[in-house]
Structure formats: C-alpha cells, structure tokens
C-alpha cells in the first residue's frame, strides 16, 4: 500500500518541482547561464595579455616634438601620439597617453602618479631619452621573464566569476522561490500536509545542485574554450568545492528569505548580503587590497573562502586537504544558516 501512488519520495518530488519551475522561467535561465559567459568574455577581452606591448607616449605638438618622436621611435618599443598643448591633461586622464612629454630642454614629463601604468610609462620614456642623450648603462642585467600558464588576469578572474555566480544564483534562486511560495500561500497549504518542513527547505538547497552542475560546466568550459583558462588541480576537487559553495549559499538564501513577506523585502536583503561580498571577497580584484584591519572580517566571509579555494584548485593546483580553512568557513556558514532558517522560518 505505501507506494505513494506512483509518486517518488517527497524530497525527490519537491526538488524536481523546483528544478522544473526554474527551467520554465526563461529570464532566470538567461541570468544564470548567459550572464557569466558575457562577463567572462567582456573582461577576458578587456584584460587579455598582450605580451611585450609598446608603451604609449604622448608628445606635445611642436617642431622640437617631431625630433623627440623620432628618437623614441628609433629606440623601439614606443607608440607615439601627438597631443595638442591644450589637451595634455585630458589625454592623461582619459588614458589616451599615460605620459605626455613637453620637449625641453629639459623635457617635462606630465603623468599621473596614482596610476601604475602612468608611472611605468614615465620610467620607460626617461630611460630611452637619457640613452639617446648619451647615458651609458652601468651594467646589463640578465633578464628571465616567466611565462607561467595560469598567471594571466583572466586565469585569476574566472574562479572569482564562478564563485560570484554560485553565490548570486544560490541566494536568488532559493530566496525568490521561497518568498513567492509564501505570498501565494503555498507554504501555508504545504504545512497543512504531513510534509516534513526540513525536507521542504532541503529541496530548495538541493535543487541548486542540479543547476550548479550546468552553471559551472558552462562557465569553466567557456573560459577554457575561449581563453584557454585551465584547471591546474583535479576536476573532482573543483566539483566538490562548487557543490559545497552551492549548498552554503543555498542555506544563506533560505536564511535571508526566512521571514520576508514580499519580493521587494527579500530583494533588498539579498543585495545587502551580496554587495559587500562582491566588493570585498576578491571577485574582480584581490581582497588583499583592503587594509589589514579589515582582513579578519573579509576572510570570514563565505565568498572569500569560496573564491580562495576555487583559485587554489584552478590556479595553484592545490588538493582539497590544503584548503581546510576555507572549507571549514563554508561549511560553518552553510550549516549555521540552514539551522537558523529552519528555526526562524515563517510558514504563513
């Protein structure tokens, strides 16, 4: 008799239902799959490594300027742009020329001290002009550039994008669905059955895993095919971390949605949770840019832990055993938020 009339166990039915509902929502599918691919593409192109690129130098237009340009072009390694005298500051500001030379004697270097690119260009121009004026090098250093795979910006970026995607789809996917079920009184209807409440919440988190498999494959696969971003460590470790991340942020999504009554309220809460992590957790730039005082806080954030661990596997080829701290931080967030959500959850 207890064959459930042809239905599968509740956890399976509930998880499948979440999965189907998601796939039938074209906008959601776009955000989950197309968004990270577009992002990887745009950033990959903007920050592609260009090998030894010529340094761009601006030269203020004048008779003397022509000679100066000739000198730099003879040295090689420079692209010269003529800049009108009134246009100098704007050219530096908008990045047309990181350094602009006003012909002397002595020449004047106009550049932006706050930009690394600008400083490097100033040094290169100075060296070339000094040499042209007859300065001799005291010695010639032996230069050995490294061309390590996995050290480009895109290699560093892709694990961060993967982490960010796991976070935002986890929070949105779970939070949105829960609040919708609450406003439609579907939650109330479900608690009027013998359904286990823990199983209902777990089904939302578990359905994340089904999407995750697809999301992660799309992102990692695309980055590999388009930019040659590889995985140094084992794919299995990468998969395990992605699963852990999805469970953690699914749990966080439950917590964020546990009391909210409206979509507006839950959207606000989600942004409140995600915004600091987008900035602090090293998605687009390293979190080590922030002062030491903030580091204990930043290191305790789940996205920091996930990004660090994903980079450990993808860029540095580390085994999971070397990522114990990050894994512990993720597991603590996941278990803690699931437990609190179960306790605080508003079913009606």
């Amino acid at each position: 008799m207890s064959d459930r009339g042809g239905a599968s166990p509740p956890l399976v039915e509930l998880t499948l239902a979440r999965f189907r509902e998601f796939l039938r929502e074209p906008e959601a599918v776009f955000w989950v799959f197309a968004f990270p691919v577009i992002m990887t593409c745009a950033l990959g192109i903007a920050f592609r490594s260009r090998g030894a690129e010529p340094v761009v130098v601006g030269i203020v237009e004048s008779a003397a300027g022509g000679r100066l340009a000739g000198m730099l072009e003879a040295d090689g390694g420079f692209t010269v742009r003529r800049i009108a005298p009134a246009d100098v500051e704007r050219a530096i500001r908008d990045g047309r020329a990181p350094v602009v030379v006003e012909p002397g004697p002595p020449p004047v270097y106009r550049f932006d001290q706050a930009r690394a690119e600008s400083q490097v260009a100033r040094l290169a121009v100075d060296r070339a002009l000094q040499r042209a004026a007859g300065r001799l090098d005291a010695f010639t250093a032996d230069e050995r550039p490294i061309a390590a795979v996995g050290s480009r910006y895109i290699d560093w970026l892709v694990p961060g994008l993967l982490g960010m995607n796991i976070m935002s789809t986890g929070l949105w996917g779970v939070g949105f669905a829960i609040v919708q079920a609450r406003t439609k009184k579907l939650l109330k209807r479900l608690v009027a059955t013998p359904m286990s409440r823990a199983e209902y919440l777990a089904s939302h988190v578990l359905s994340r895993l089904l999407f995750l498999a697809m999301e992660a494959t799309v992102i990692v696969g695309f980055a590999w095919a388009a930019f040659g971003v590889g995985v140094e460590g084992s794919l299995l470790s990468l998969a395990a971390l992605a699963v852990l991340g999805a469970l953690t942020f699914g749990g966080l999504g439950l917590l964020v949605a546990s009391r909210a009554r409206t979509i507006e309220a839950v959207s606000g809460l989600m942004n409140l949770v995600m915004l600091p992590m987008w900035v602090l957790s090293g998605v687009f730039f390293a979190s080590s840019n922030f002062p030491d005082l903030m580091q204990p806080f930043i290191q305790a954030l789940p996205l920091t832990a996930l990004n660090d661990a994903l980079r450990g596997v993808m860029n540095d080829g580390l085994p999971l055993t070397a990522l114990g701290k990050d894994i512990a931080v993720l597991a603590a967030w996941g278990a803690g938020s699931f437990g609190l959500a179960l306790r605080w959850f508003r079913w009606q």
Partner: protein
Amino acid sequence: MKRYPDVVAVAGLDLDVGRGECFGLLGPNGAGKTTTIEILEGLLDQDEGDVRVLGLSWHGDRAELRRRLGVQLQETQLADKLTVGETLRIFRSFFADGPTVDELLDVVELGAKRASWVGKLSGGQKQRLAVACALAGRPELLFLDEPTTGLDPQSRRQLWDVLGRFRAEGRTILLTTHYMDEAHALCDRVGIMDKGTLIALGTPRELVASIGAEHVVEFAVTGAAPASDALRALPGVRDVRVDDGRLSLATSELHETVPALLDFVRGRGAALSSLVTHSATLEDVFVSLTGRHLRDE
C-alpha cells in the same frame, strides 16, 4: 475564541460535527468562517477554547491529524509553471496511502489536463485541482474554504458532484460558503455565522422552517409606505420588513396573503409598482436573524 489586535474574529462558537456528515458554515464576508476553519485545521491557534478533531487534539497528535485530514485553503495559488500531474505527484508523495495520481485526476475529471500548466487552467479547473490535492491522502475529514466562490454555475455543479462522491464513501466534509443554494444542495446541517458567533444551527429545512413562513413576498407601492402594523394584520403574515421603500412579508399562506395585500393597497388608493414572491431560503433566515443580507449586492 480568536482575537486580532482590532477585532475579535471568532467568539464563543460551540459546534459538534458528526462523522459522515457534510456540515456547512454560512456567513457574510468577515463573519469568521476562515478563522474558524483554520483553527480546526491546526493552522491558527485559538486564544481560548478547546478543539478536538477526529477525537484528537492539535497539541498531542499533530502528525497523525495531518495524515488523516484533507485541506483546501481560501487563498492558495498553486505553482503556475508546474503541470497538473506534477502538482498532484507532489501532494501525493506526502502520504503513504491513498489513491494514485491517475485516480485523483479521474475523480476531479482533470485527466485531459494532466500535462497542462496550472497557470493555464480555468478558475473551476484550478478549484477542482485544489480539491484533488486535498484528497491525495484519502482523508477521513475534508476541510473546504469557499471551494466554489467565483465559479460559474456549471463549474460549481461539477465540484458538487466531486464532493457528492466523496460523501458517498461515508466520509466527513466541513465547508464554508456564501451561497445558500450550495448549502442547501450539499449540507446535512448548516451553521450560520455572523460577527464571529454562531447565530443559527440546524438542517437547511429546519432553519427555513424556523422563520415560520415558507414564502416571501417583496413589493413596493406608489405614494407613502403603509404602516407595518397594518401589514402584519394581513392573513398568513408572520413578519414584515421595510428596507429602503421596499417591503417584504414573510408568510405561511401565500394564497391568502397575496389577494389580501392587493385589496389592502387598492383600499389605500395606491398601486403596486412591483411584486415578487419566492420560497423562503437560508438567505431569508439570515435576513430575519440579522436584518442584513448575506452578500452586500
């Protein structure tokens, strides 16, 4: 008893529903029907009073009650983007025993809609699906909160048939409704609620008989309205109401009252501007008890 900050939703309701019975709670908007039924369903806690369902209490036997009850709520919207079959599978999966999904589809005659999205169903089909979900565990007791509100007469009749088959198996239904004809057609006994209390209880026939008149005559006259005392003296008349220039008489002897009324009006040198008669219904019971209509038309 259930209190909300600015209103006492249900106060002092004493009610017994027997097994195998179909019981209807009838009342206007805000009467406390939903509050009452949700307390019985264990979805709301009462502030005072004792509730027993199938001889069990919500404090000690919650899990067992959940297995043995079927519930349909007034406001639930099932997931739009799941199909009818998928929705039923979910509800069915919560119960160890019960009909198969196919049997449930047959009971509510939605077999042809099995693969349609819930969001694409008509109002009546959605309500039948909601009832099918409530039947998923082969409940002994079925709670329905306004199952037919907003449906066209044909859809209502289809749903009545479903409930009729459920009752034929000797199981119990407690439903709420705005519709007198629905209570008449489905219920063995009816409780009429107003402002959180039960103002009448009995079989539909008993309740109609309780106003002492099987017929109602509604009319309006030209000129000044006649005094109600004079009307009360007409043969057969039990009760007189004046409502905004419209008069209504409750009578037990229609064939005597109407000719006497015509003579009376003619004798005053006035004329009838309208005259309608109908058999007394639960609506008239409600009017005679409260002086108001069930539905504010």
